[in-house]
């Protein structure tokens, strides 16, 4: 990459981003209510993908537990919405679970501010605590990944088992309004869409800033050679912890937005399957590039929605094949492919990586 060419390229890229942002914000003018709602949901997913990319694409830690952080954010928002709908009385599911009084930990969620704060803080604190132990104990790679799966099982089983407090398998649904605005009205939906789009763009900019900073450089160094970083004198655990925490907080924000658009959160959204799907969005879009992760989330969900409508009985077959093909033949995802096509003469990758380093 020559310095001379950098300036015009950067201009083009900026123009591209501006166009994308403009397209995002003007989408309500072109698509119907249902499609807008879907798109808003995809944007919420794109936010998780950004957070996941930060920790996986840039730091090299694969978390199969981001569904938990996403879900915790979503539950915080859902608790607020449910209390708003029931007017502060114990919600319906507590009634049919035999609970007559609102439990203490539900009370603060009557306040919208508290719910939002909790939706960001709870996932972040959980990630911090988890990261503190795991990263300091140098649990890495596959071990960390499997550990996060164990956490997913713990969280979902607890959520399902404590039906009186959490709504059980049903999750929490049946909301009416947000701060007095009816969730059913098209105006509120449009406003929520814009809020989501704005959130996506701000988080994108934030991630961009983080990855471009010195902090981001250390993260990438950790990804490429954790021990070397340690020998230079950095403590990788702290960087990993911080990245993991930010990533979890971002997932929490996405979860809160998701609930507003979809109108339900249930433990199934925190399970193993959605957690792996989130990773797949990033993998397919292109890990290590923010735009790839975001686009991957939007494209994959769009594809899932369309496939399942077109072939309701066999769509998982297509999705499965798509995952296999992309992972095997496009290891850098869609974004990476574009890059390879552009600079194919300059960048030659080793054709076949052997198992030089099986432990990874």
């Amino acid at each position, binding site marked *: 990459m020559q310095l001379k060419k950098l300036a015009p390229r950067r201009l083009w890229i900026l123009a591209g981003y501006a166009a994308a942002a403009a397209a995002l914000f003007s989408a309500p003018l072109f698509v*119907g209510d249902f499609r807008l709602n879907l798109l808003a949901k995809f944007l919420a997913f794109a936010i998780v993908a950004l957070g996941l990319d930060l920790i996986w694409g840039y730091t090299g830690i694969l978390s199969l537990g981001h569904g938990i952080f996403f879900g915790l954010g979503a539950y915080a928002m859902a608790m607020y919405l449910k209390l708003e709908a029931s007017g502060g009385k114990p919600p*319906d599911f507590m009634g*049919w679970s035999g609970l007559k009084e609102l439990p203490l930990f539900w009370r603060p969620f009557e306040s919208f501010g508290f719910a939002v704060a909790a939706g960001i803080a709870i996932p972040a604190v959980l990630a911090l605590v988890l990261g503190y132990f795991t990263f300091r104990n140098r649990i890495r790679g596959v071990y960390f990944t499997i550990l996060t799966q164990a956490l997913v099982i713990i969280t979902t089983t607890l959520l*399902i088992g404590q039906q009186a407090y959490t709504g059980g398998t*049903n999750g929490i*649904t049946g909301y009416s309004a947000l701060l007095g605005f009816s969730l059913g009205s098209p105006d509120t939906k449009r406003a929520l869409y814009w809020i989501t789009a704005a959130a996506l763009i701000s988080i994108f900019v934030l991630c961009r800033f983080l990855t471009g900073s010195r902090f981001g450089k250390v993260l990438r160094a950790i990804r490429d050679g954790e021990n070397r970083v340690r020998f230079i004198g950095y403590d990788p655990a702290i960087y990993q912890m911080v990245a993991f925490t930010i990533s979890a907080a971002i997932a929490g924000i996405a979860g809160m937005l998701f609930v507003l658009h979809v109108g*339900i959160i249930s433990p199934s959204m925190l399970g193993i399957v959605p957690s792996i799907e989130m990773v797949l969005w990033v993998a397919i879009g292109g890990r290590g590039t923010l735009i790839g992760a975001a686009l991957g989330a939007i494209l994959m969900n769009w594809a899932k929605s369309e496939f399942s*409508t*077109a072939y309701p009985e066999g769509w998982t077959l297509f999705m499965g094949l798509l995952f296999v*093909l992309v992972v095997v033949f496009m290891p850098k995802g869609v974004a990476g492919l574009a890059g390879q096509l552009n600079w194919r003469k300059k960048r030659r990758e080793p054709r076949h990586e052997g198992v030089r380093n099986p432990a990874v």
Partner: protein
Amino acid sequence: MRKRLFYQFSLLLVAVGLVLAGCGNDEPASTNEATNAPADSANTGAPAEEGIKVGILHSQSGTMAISEVSVIDAELMAIEEINAAGGVLGKPIVPVLEDGASDWPTFAEKARKLISEDKVATVFGGWTSASRKAMKPVFEELNGLLWYPVQYEGLEASPNIFYTGATTNQQIVPSVTWLLENRGKKFYLLGSDYVFPRTANLIIKEQLKAEGGELVGEEYTPLGHTDYSTIISKIKEAKPDIVYNTLNGDSNVAFFKQLKDAGITAADMTTLSVSVAEEEIRGIGVDVLEGHLAAWNYYQTTDTPTNKTFVDNYKKKYGDDRVTADPIEAGYTAVYLWAAAVEKAGSTDVEKVKEAAKELEWEAPEGKVKIDGETQHLYKTVRIGEVQADGQFKELWNSGEAVKPDPYLKGYDWAASIQPTE
């Protein structure tokens, strides 16, 4: 290198092509329906514009597909029969299939899509209570119409849902009374860990207190639990007369297989299940289930003239080895009731159909059913059956007449404490 790139590029093209193929499919359900039900094309192949679109929203993938796929078959068969007889209001019914994927938010999303994008007249769908609870706010917000075909835990009567399965006073409550009178007083409650078993058991516990039964144990297992050895040990220790089983889906297979291995047969201890029908028996194995009890409103062996034709047609269409069961029948009935209501209303407008459906009667395979105008549930006959060696049920008892639905159990004094808080 170049070759490889070409390869990758062509793959991408294929992928993009697939996505586009999906997107190109938004418009009418014509292509959609052709891929879903090729066998039906002869009857329902009319262009979508001329037909009346209805949504069919069940899980075709994921863990719930084991149960829901057969209900789709029954609903499609009802649609085909109605179309063969001239359709409704002179137009054919065109089914639009969607996959709920055993995932509740997906049910909500697809329900929204069916109502606001496909503009379907009504939706037949759902199985688990969770899927119904997820769809309920969508149908209420958009004023759609949902026909829900499975027995459930009651305490609900949405103005936008018709419940064609049993509520608690048409299945659980009478079966508990029957067990107390005929099989013993000591109950052990075993269920999967979700809303239906927990609510059902809440009701049963109140009823046991009021009617002189005794609770000796209560256990919930996570959905998909596959080892029941510890639970069976606990049951052995508690020495109940009756295990009241509200397990769902796959767990039933593991529980009954392992119960038999532990040396407990139907002769030693009564079990009564509320989610084990003919279809489940096929998956569990008759040798394991013979002699165990179930409570439903319909069995394949139920002796009515309509049922004979229904079973014959179902087997003719889907194969001799297939069986009918209560939710399958309820799904089939739902389609006919909706069609009758539309004919009576002269329109597919939700409000008019709801009005016309009040007190509507129909000769269903399970016997005469009537829609209760107030709760939008059906009057249904309660039946307790015993599994026979051929995988069918023998009816041991029935309520004699169709029981009026009472989802909130207002007619039972002991149920006063189980009312919803809202």
